[in-house]
């Protein structure tokens, strides 16, 4: 990976201030929904509510996750780290305090070593200050085996679904244990798999993380631009859909005729034209297998900067999860019913 001498083709100023400047812009664009505290380095919902709090956080570079999900019906606060870097405990402690109305706070934690460590330190600090915290681990990625020999399965697309569904549960007045339980249920009933056709360029690195020649794709990717499980010859959308479904269904093993929510997510650099094409391939194959796609989400919601590629998250629905998915939400990135 060469050191870059020429400026990156990015709409930025100084690479070192990308995150702060972007957060300020987000808050300016959606001031009715979210406010940015640059001292605490957190985004907090503009209108508070007397309910269980719900926060998440992680490295930046995955927008709209998590800041774009702050608002009624979803997150109460988001803690953005540097690009692809877990935020620090002070951020999560500040966010927890900001959203606590005495009913406790749920932390949605994606299963990455750094996220888990920093959130754990923050949860201990919050408990020391008398705030009850329930931490929910998201580990839906099927590409990595959960074993003694890995850092465990990554938290990917199910994070978005858990934040929406648990957000609705908190909004309707569920208590701390119930909100956490619903988030965990989403995690248990969802599986994901991703494919990349290009790498991405973190501003601080200045060059693509890996080289992906023409005619090749990375399969079994995460969301931090790291190489995937394998490199293969580039497949068609049809082949990629088949690959994704095979990976996800063989692990999830949904019941015959199960109601499902397919979430086709763009990694950031793939146009909507292609995402919908891929979605069509996925939905057709779900129906062929006797499954019932009764809700869906298509778009770039949990990204890896400008990486071209897509991930599939499949959630096996039940009546309650479906109702919570349908509940109103008003955030910069997701908005319905409100």
């Amino acid at each position: 990976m060469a050191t870059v001498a020429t400026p990156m083709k990015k709409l930025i100023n100084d690479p070192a201030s990308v995150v702060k400047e972007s957060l300020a812009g987000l808050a300016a664009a959606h001031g009715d929904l979210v406010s940015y505290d640059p001292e605490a380095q957190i985004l907090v919902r503009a209108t508070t509510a007397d309910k269980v709090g719900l926060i998440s956080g992680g490295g930046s570079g995955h927008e709209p996750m998590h800041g774009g999900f702050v608002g009624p019906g979803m997150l109460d606060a988001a803690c953005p780290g540097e690009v692809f870097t877990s935020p620090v405990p002070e951020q999560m402690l500040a966010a927890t305090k900001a959203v606590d109305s005495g009913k406790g706070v749920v932390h949605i934690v994606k299963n990455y070593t750094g996220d888990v460590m920093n959130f754990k330190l923050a949860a201990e600090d919050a408990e020391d200050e008398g705030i009850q915290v329930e931490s929910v681990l998201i580990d839906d990625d099927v590409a990595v085996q959960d074993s003694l020999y890995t850092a465990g399965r990554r938290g990917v697309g199910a994070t978005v679904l858990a934040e929406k569904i648990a957000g609705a549960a908190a909004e309707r007045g569920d208590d701390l244990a119930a909100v956490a339980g619903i988030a965990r249920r989403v995690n248990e009933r969802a599986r994901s798999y991703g494919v990349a056709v290009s790498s991405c360029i973190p501003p601080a690195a200045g060059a693509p993380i890996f080289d992906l020649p023409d005619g090749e794709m990375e399969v079994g990717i995460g969301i931090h631009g790291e190489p995937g499980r394998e490199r293969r010859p580039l497949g068609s959308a049809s082949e990629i859909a088949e690959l994704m479904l095979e990976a996800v269904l063989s692990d999830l093993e949904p019941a015959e005729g199960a109601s499902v929510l397919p979430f086709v997510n763009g990694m950031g650099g793939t146009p909507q034209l292609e995402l919908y094409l891929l979605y069509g391939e996925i939905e057709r194959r779900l129906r062929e297998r006797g499954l019932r796609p009764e809700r869906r989400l298509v778009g770039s919601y949990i990204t890896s900067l400008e990486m071209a590629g897509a991930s599939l998250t499949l959630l096996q629905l039940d009546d309650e999860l479906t109702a919570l998915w349908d509940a109103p939400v008003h955030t910069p990135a997701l908005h319905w019913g409100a």
Partner: protein
Amino acid sequence: MRTTTIHAWMTTIAESVKDRRDYLTQLDAAIGDGDHGVNMDRGFDAVGKALAAQDGSLPPGKLLTIAGKTLVSTVGGASGPLWGTAFRRAGRALGDREELDGQDLVVALRAALDGVVELGAAQPGDKTMVDALGPAIDALESALAAGEPLQAALAAATAAAESGARATVPLQARKGRASYLGERSIGHQDPGATSAALVMAALQRAVEQES
């Protein structure tokens, strides 16, 4: 070794990670997400500023504690909590003593390593910072036990850390982001072990400068 030595150690680490920032980034790009260099640079830069604000009246252990806390607040990722814990444990082990000898250093570094292993659960061979720190501390302890002066013992420790970092090349990662790559992590030097070797080399140079 005194407070001034610890201060020099931290300053030298900061210079070192700034100087090798791109190299650490490259290593992390091969088997991770390319942020290790910039994260360590940011953290030790902040440590430098935090220590510069001190008036020199604190004992060495307290300086290490400040360094550890600063790293947790600024580095992020897994490196923040891991290095933060390492320095905090080292600081705690030194208590209030003002002068440190080789034995004190071994005790402090062992406490640091124990903290890292407790938090991250890495074992030797998992392709992590432990693969550089473990051999370094063993080498330091052996050299001192054999009657070597501190300077020579630290040279042996640094050599062991650097050799340990290079030895991560053929390993398959079992911890951290590199573990997602499975066999593809083989053939690349671990960035965490590499920066750990820089930390040991910085300690050697700081003690050298003092004498």
